[in-house]
């Protein structure tokens, strides 16, 4: 199946996943005390779930990976790469092993501004126009995605985010598409 997914808003999907998995109101009611950091869910569970990807559809796999890789929690993530590591289940073993955290966050200023509101990023993913998509072979494709995000503070405030374009390279092995490479081609941060 080679469907084209256009501009889906991740939080909606995240909420849908929450509803399906039952991770919703009952848990909130069960515990009124603030959870400890180890108990906290990244972005309070609003990030897209890697299991939501249809592994027989490279568009879905690429879309999900792009979304997960840009869903950060300023209260939990030290670098941008933390999110890439969460997308590792969609990657080949070799590519997952390549995901190395640098010592510092490349968009630290943005994370710090977000941290003041205990914010998490809310990514919106769409397909990149132009000729970036390539069907190289029956088991090799490249897909371009454009991601725009803003930060949602847990205090209700929003913080400006940015946008990025990434290329996601995928191969099919044993009937499943997996990410064998990704490459951020451009990142722009909104002026504050």
């Amino acid at each position, binding site marked *: 199946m080679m469907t084209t997914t256009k501009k889906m808003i991740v939080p909606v999907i995240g909420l849908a996943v929450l509803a399906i998995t039952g991770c919703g109101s009952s848990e909130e009611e069960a515990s009124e005390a603030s959870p400890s950091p180890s108990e906290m869910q990244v972005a309070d569970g609003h990030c897209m779930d890697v299991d939501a990807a249809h592994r027989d559809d490279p568009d879905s796999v690429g879309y999900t990976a792009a979304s997960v890789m840009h869903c950060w929690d*300023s*209260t*939990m*993530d*030290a*670098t*941008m*790469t933390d999110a*890439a590591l969460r997308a590792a289940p969609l990657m080949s073993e*070799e*590519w997952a092993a*390549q995901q*190395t*955290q*640098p*010592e*510092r*966050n*490349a*968009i*630290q*200023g*943005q*994370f*710090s*501004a977000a*941290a003041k509101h205990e914010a998490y990023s809310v990514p919106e993913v769409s397909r*990149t*126009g*132009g*000729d*970036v998509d*390539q069907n*190289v*072979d029956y088991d*090799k494709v*490249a897909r*371009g995605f*454009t991601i725009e995000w803003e930060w949602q503070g847990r205090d209700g405030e929003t913080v400006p985010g940015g946008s990025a*374009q990434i*290329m996601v*390279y995928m*191969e099919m092995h044993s009937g499943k598409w997996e990410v*064998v*490479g*990704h*490459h*951020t*081609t*451009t*990142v722009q*941060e909104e*002026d*504050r």
Partner: protein
Amino acid sequence: MSMAGKAAKFGIKAALLKLFGPILAFFGVALLLLAFMLFLLINAGLSGGAEQAESESQRVETAGNSCSITSEEGEGGDAEGKSTSVPAEYAEDVKKASEEAGIPEQIIAAQIQQESQWDPTAGSHAGAQGIAQFMPATWATYGEGGDIHDGHDGIAALGRYMKDLKGQVSEQAGDDSDELIRLTLAAYNAGPGAVHQHDGVPPYDETRHYVETITGNGQTKFSEDCSPKGSATAWDGDLGDGEWTNPCPGCQFTSGYGPRNVPGLPAWAQNHVGVDLATPGAGNSNGTDIIAPTDMTVVGFLADDGCVMTRQKEGPGFFFAFCHMNSNEVEDGQELKRGDIIGVEGNTAGGGGGGVATHLHLEIYDPESPDPPMPYNDHNIDPEPILKEKGAWPE
């Protein structure tokens, strides 16, 4: 002549003198005043020219290392917010840190923007603090007893730290000063050990992004009047005088330049050596007119992909390729003026229409490129920072 004649002649002279004397005197004084004013004007002009020449000399001189940056109280920030200014209170600190580290001022400024957005109270989940986001252990070495939350102390420490890192990666950079800046920034983000391990910028997406963002912002946000610095483009020469025109009016930037030579990427992964600009909503229909961004000469065509190749007439003599056009209105050898129509944005690729969504794929090649240039000929340079610097980037 008789006395009477002489007296008569004298009388006439006296009468004439009485009549025209004041007029002559008036014109004489006026002439003197005019000459004096002319002298003042010339003197002022020469003086002003000398000041301007001196100012230009200073700008050119500093451009060799640091370029000029703009503070919020200075010139340069435009009303549309295209450029980011250094907060006035930190302008002198940035200058001193630049001198300490031997790193261009606009790089230091872009780095602080990236690290904390100039917020001296910034903190991070990982424990980094202050305007330059120092970890406490690093601050203990480079802070020199200052206050980590004091912006002035933080920028000074950044200068010392960058100087140290620069020294640690200088061997990897060799004689390439741009590479030295790239590696120093990579060392700041990933650690000097990672730079040593990979003998260059580590193949971490995040680190590569950090380096490209700092060098790119250093050029486009903090020094729009300067030549490219760092590695925002492989072209490190003069871009020539004057502004260019947006080659794809009304278009949006949809895809950037980037050789995909990232270690670990599969060999089949494509290489995109141009920028894509597209009319929003054009789909597979004809888009907008494609415009010559500067004066250029048509040097070739690549019909299968709807490309027109040109060469810039003035320095530095870049080559261009305008691709995927559905039609063109130029002939080989035709000289184009800035603003002339080259063709129509389209989706011609692989010998036909419909191969791609409608957009302009724009490539720029260095002046040493074969003539005519062909796409992906290893002489490509990133068009984005060049178009930005020349004021021709889509809004």
